């Protein structure tokens, strides 16, 4: 099983663990992740303005490059996943945007959203299969009560992400079961941690992060897992009312598969 892989900037610097464990786990599962040689920063956030063209082009470039490789494109960071899927959707379904983007980029063959973008979790669920993962687990996390934190960017907007029920998702809970642990469902798992507002309004970011972390703790979770470096940062730094630990889901996957170090 071979996929093109889009790591994104943060995974090369502050979120190296998310990337490193993701690659090790994939290898253990017999999945080949081929890093796109010429990927560029996705832009961090998708502009909702229809007349923002230039700021979306770097994502289009990566998508077009993946099309040439011919494999589905796997992303790991929630934000990259969100930007790439939304940009791809706009290239496919917004003729005005795709015409302008293609015009600007002057590719040999115009790009019209042909690349299939999936999140690493979707790859685990739909291509590898959680049952297959469970079979390969050598070091099950038995007895651990884990709260899945989806945040906003993994699932929303639901019509574009098409990953799971945005209000009552199960993909990470099923993942948690596959690695032998017990999922903790709590109501704020799909509410925002504050995101980039931590740059501008620490108080707001603290309020939002605390709400998520305390909701998980209140429901008896030992730890929180996430796919997003910014969520991890906010829940670690800004959720100062609780000391519940936060991990990347790939770290636990690598641990369960016995390939952590």
């Amino acid at each position: 099983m071979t996929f093109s892989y889009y790591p994104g900037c943060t995974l090369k610097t502050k979120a190296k663990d998310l990337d490193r464990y993701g690659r090790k786990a994939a290898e253990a599962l017999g999945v080949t992740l081929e890093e796109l040689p010429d990927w560029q920063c996705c832009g961090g956030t998708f502009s909702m303005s229809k007349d923002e063209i230039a700021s979306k082009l770097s994502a289009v470039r990566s998508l077009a490059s993946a099309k040439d490789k011919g494999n589905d494109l796997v992303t790991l960071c929630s934000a990259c996943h969100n930007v790439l899927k939304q940009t791809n959707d706009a290239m496919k379904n917004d003729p005005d945007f795709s015409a302008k983007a293609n015009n600007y980029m002057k590719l040999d063959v115009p790009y019209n959203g042909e690349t299939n973008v999936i999140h690493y979790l979707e790859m685990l669920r739909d291509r590898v299969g959680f049952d297959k993962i469970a079979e390969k687990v050598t070091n099950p996390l038995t007895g651990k009560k884990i709260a899945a934190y989806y945040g906003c960017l993994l699932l929303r907007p639901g019509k574009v992400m098409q990953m799971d029920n945005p209000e009552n998702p199960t993909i990470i809970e099923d993942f948690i079961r596959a690695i032998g642990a017990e999922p903790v469902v709590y109501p704020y798992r799909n509410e925002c941690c504050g995101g980039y507002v931590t740059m501008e309004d620490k108080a707001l970011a603290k309020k939002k992060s605390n709400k998520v972390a305390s909701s998980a703790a209140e429901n008896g979770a030992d730890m929180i897992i996430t796919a997003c470096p910014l969520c991890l940062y906010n829940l670690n730094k800004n959720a100062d009312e609780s000391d519940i630990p936060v991990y990347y889901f790939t770290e636990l996957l690598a641990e369960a598969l016995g390939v952590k170090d």
Partner: protein
Amino acid sequence: MSKVTKEQVLRSSGVNVLKCMRCGKCSATCPSYDEMEYHPHQFVYMVEKGDLEPLLNSDSIYKCLSCYACVERCPRGVEPAKVVEGIRNAVLRQSGMNHIKAENIPDMLDEDLPQQAIVSAFRKYKR
């Protein structure tokens, strides 16, 4: 600031504000509600009325987390976050209206902050 028109905001956001049935579910679901002077449903209604000035001059445009909760839960498919973004971009595109400046970034950093936050903040707060 030069004149921003309703048509400009509607075109940029791609939102049909007339679809709103004034149920307030966007504001019911907004995680930044308490920090906002004008709330998501007011953005939609005030743009419909062409009452843009208060929105253009309000800090509320920097409080939206772009979390898509209002987009996901609106029963009419109005997508209020896109209206907020439309107003914010109309402000940022004016000269001298950047909300953060590059030289201030070092003070905001700590060693764990993922640069994804910086990139996003530049996208959201700066031309």
